[in-house]
């Protein structure tokens, strides 16, 4: 395959967003900033069409992987830019395109009238473009570049309302935490280049598969990649930036949580899975991190009061489930859950956006709402659909992926089974708690209808309706995703221009890619029972014993503090950050100012002082000068005589 044979849709994937960004920045932003979204929405439509076309192509067996441009080369090393259109890539890409485009449409009405409307849309679309690049990269270096671009765009969006101090802080927190993870990725990247001499996925897969001895750094590479994914995908211990990233506008949260940001970490692990699976100890590590995070965040989500914060912890928990699925070797399940999660989480966030919009605030607290169902029928209906999907109730989308994860976890048994069961109960509990608290009741502690909520206009509702329908129906994609991941991944012909001339086609059989687990009635019963248990508990705690949420908070402030500080982990992180900040202050103020500057200034002072002393010898007398001349000449002659 040559560059000329690359289908038009693959080119459009990049051409449309870049053209829209250039047009938006150079033409609309200076002339008509309130129209900046027009080329960008058009680009979204093009990208959606192109990515669906590419997915159809891959399903028909047309995966390809191609180097397009040699960016840098030195000796036997080279860094290429290429295009990899394969199963997992297009599966995630089509979800990102569809969900991202709907969020763009929502953002066009949500952000209308904001003074930074034009800036918002440009950065928002850059975020989208970065994710497209990340999903179609064909080597680790390219993936890393787009990975960083995603980080930058998220920083700009979280800190979008930079006049608010909390937004600036949250943006910095998100960026710096991601830097901590990115550093792991960078080290892993350098180790990959050192050990394998190439960064192309397909070549690395091939080398891992066919080398008789395992490269000595492989376990370290795996651990570093997992570390990077933990930061990007908000896994314990680096999850804490994600709930704070709520400070950005709601469409940003929806895009970050559903499509573009946090899925990048999971996607990195999917891309690197043949490497990680080659080290027997690493998949259980991934599963353990995922299981722990899933339970940990689900418990916290059940105790938070801010609506967007509940959803943020829920995202952390669901990303944990994806990691758990990956760790159990279920790559296709992880991709499926990633896709379905994208739909229902985007819908839930936009519903939360509508709720906040009703009281003209970026976010709402459970105290501000209550009994809003009758005034926001459409939002409520969408929320219910998405919540049923999240809770994993048959036949809604989330059921299919969560059932498969639960199946895998139960099959593995032990702590993983327990974690899977706990998450099933807890996720149903927190999402139904949020639903009941928002749309039902109006408890005495809540403002309820006193806040005069009103349904947002159709332009706010339409994208959510589509998203929640997607969330409800995404289960239909199950077999397609399986085909994409299992076959679309393995059948990638990769043409390698080996330095020296000849071309070789490599096919790598991939380890650790298994088909979805068979449907099992027992797991179905267990999963549904657990979800029903969670939903029932939520009903009891919010409707029958309506003030329970406020009562336990008031009666045991210590417990409330424990949950508020994420079981103390936030305090540990704050201490760590304070330690690092203290060290930085020491370097900046004590070391740099007092010691280093002191040494430099001291050198100047010493030179001045020495000059002062020596100038005493220079009285300006002719005779003195002649004396020194004579003495110097005598010395020179003496030295010559001695030689």
């Amino acid at each position, binding site marked *: 395959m040559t560059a000329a044979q690359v289908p038009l849709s693959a080119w459009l994937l990049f051409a449309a967003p870049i053209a829209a960004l250039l047009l938006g920045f150079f033409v609309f932003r200076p002339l008509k900033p309130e129209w900046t979204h027009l080329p960008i929405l058009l680009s979204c439509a093009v990208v959606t069409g192109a990515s669906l076309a590419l997915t159809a192509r891959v399903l028909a067996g047309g995966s390809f992987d191609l180097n397009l441009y040699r960016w840098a080369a030195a000796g036997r090393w080279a860094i290429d830019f290429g295009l990899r259109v394969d199963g997992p890539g297009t599966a995630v890409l089509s979800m990102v395109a569809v969900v991202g485009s709907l969020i763009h449409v929502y953002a066009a009405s949500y952000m209308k009238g904001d003074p930074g409307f034009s800036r918002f849309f440009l950065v928002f679309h850059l975020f989208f473009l970065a994710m497209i690049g990340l999903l179609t990269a064909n080597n680790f270096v390219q993936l890393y570049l787009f990975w960083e671009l995603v980080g930058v765009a998220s920083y700009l969006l979280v800190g979008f309302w930079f006049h608010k101090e909390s937004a600036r802080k949250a943006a910095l927190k998100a960026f710096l935490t991601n830097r901590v993870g990115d550093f792991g990725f960078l080290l892993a990247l350098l180790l990959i280049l050192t050990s394998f001499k190439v960064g192309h996925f397909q070549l690395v897969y091939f080398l891992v598969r066919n080398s008789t001895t395992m490269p000595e750094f492989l376990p370290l590479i795996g651990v570093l990649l997992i570390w990077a994914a933990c930061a990007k995908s908000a896994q314990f211990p680096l999850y804490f930036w994600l709930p704070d990233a709520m400070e950005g506008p709601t469409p940003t949260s929806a895009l970050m949580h559903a499509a573009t940001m946090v899925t990048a970490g999971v996607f990195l692990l999917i891309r690197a899975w043949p490497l990680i699976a080659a080290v027997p100890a690493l998949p259980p590590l991934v599963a353990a991190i995922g299981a722990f995070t899933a339970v940990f965040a689900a418990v916290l989500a059940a105790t938070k009061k801010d609506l967007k914060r509940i959803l943020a912890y829920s995202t952390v928990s669901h990303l944990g489930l994806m990691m758990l699925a990956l760790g159990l070797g279920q790559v296709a399940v992880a991709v499926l859950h990633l896709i379905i999660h994208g739909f229902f989480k985007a819908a839930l966030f936009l519903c939360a956006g509508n709720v906040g919009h009703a009281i003209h605030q970026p976010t709402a607290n459970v105290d501000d709402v209550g009994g809003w169902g009758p005034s926001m029928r459409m939002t409520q209906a969408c929320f219910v659909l998405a919540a049923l999907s999240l809770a994993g109730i048959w036949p809604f989308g989330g059921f299919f992926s969560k059932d498969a994860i639960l199946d895998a976890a139960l099959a593995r048994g032990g702590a993983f089974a327990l974690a899977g069961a706990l998450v099933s109960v807890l996720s149903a509990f927190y999402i139904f708690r949020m639903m009941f608290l928002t749309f039902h009741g109006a408890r005495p502690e809540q403002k309820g209808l006193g806040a005069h909520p009103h349904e947002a206009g159709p332009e706010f509702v339409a994208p959510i309706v589509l998203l929640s329908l997607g969330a409800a129906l995404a289960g239909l994609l199950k077999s397609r995703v399986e085909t994409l991941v299992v076959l679309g991944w393995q059948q990638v012909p990769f043409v390698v221009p080996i330095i020296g001339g000849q071309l070789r086609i490599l096919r790598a059989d991939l380890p650790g890619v298994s088909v979805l687990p068979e449907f099992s009635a027992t797991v179905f019963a267990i999963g549904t029972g657990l979800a029903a248990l969670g939903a029932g508990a939520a009903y009891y705690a919010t409707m029958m014993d309506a003030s329970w949420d406020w009562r336990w908070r008031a009666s045991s402030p210590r417990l409330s503090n424990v949950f508020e500080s994420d079981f103390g982990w936030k305090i540990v992180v704050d201490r760590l950050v304070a330690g690092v900040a203290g060290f930085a202050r020491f370097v900046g103020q004590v070391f740099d100012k007092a010691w280093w500057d002191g040494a430099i200034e001291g050198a100047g002072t010493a030179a001045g002082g020495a000059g002062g002393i*020596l*100038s*005493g*010898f*220079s*009285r*300006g*007398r*002719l*005779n003195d000068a*002649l*004396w020194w001349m*004579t003495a110097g000449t005598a010395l020179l002659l003496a030295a010559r005589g001695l030689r």
Partner: protein
Amino acid sequence: MSAAIWAITAFLFSAGLAAVVLRRQLLAMLLGVELMIAGVNVALVHYAGRYADAEALAAVAVVIAVAAAEAVVGLSLILKVLRSGRGLDAGDLAELRG
């Protein structure tokens, strides 16, 4: 023979150097310079005769010419300093004091 010549040269050169370094009177210092040149010339002439070297004699001639020029320049400088009203004492000419 050579020893006597060396003694004369050394005496003239040292006396000239002492005058240059120790005296402050500008004319005396200039005189010292002339003495040093004369001392060196004595030695040069002696050795030119001894080794029958015309080049050395030529060098002597050049040195005499340069010394004359130097005397002219030196004297005119001294005259300039005198006219500027700052006397002839080198100790008073200390504009370059550090």
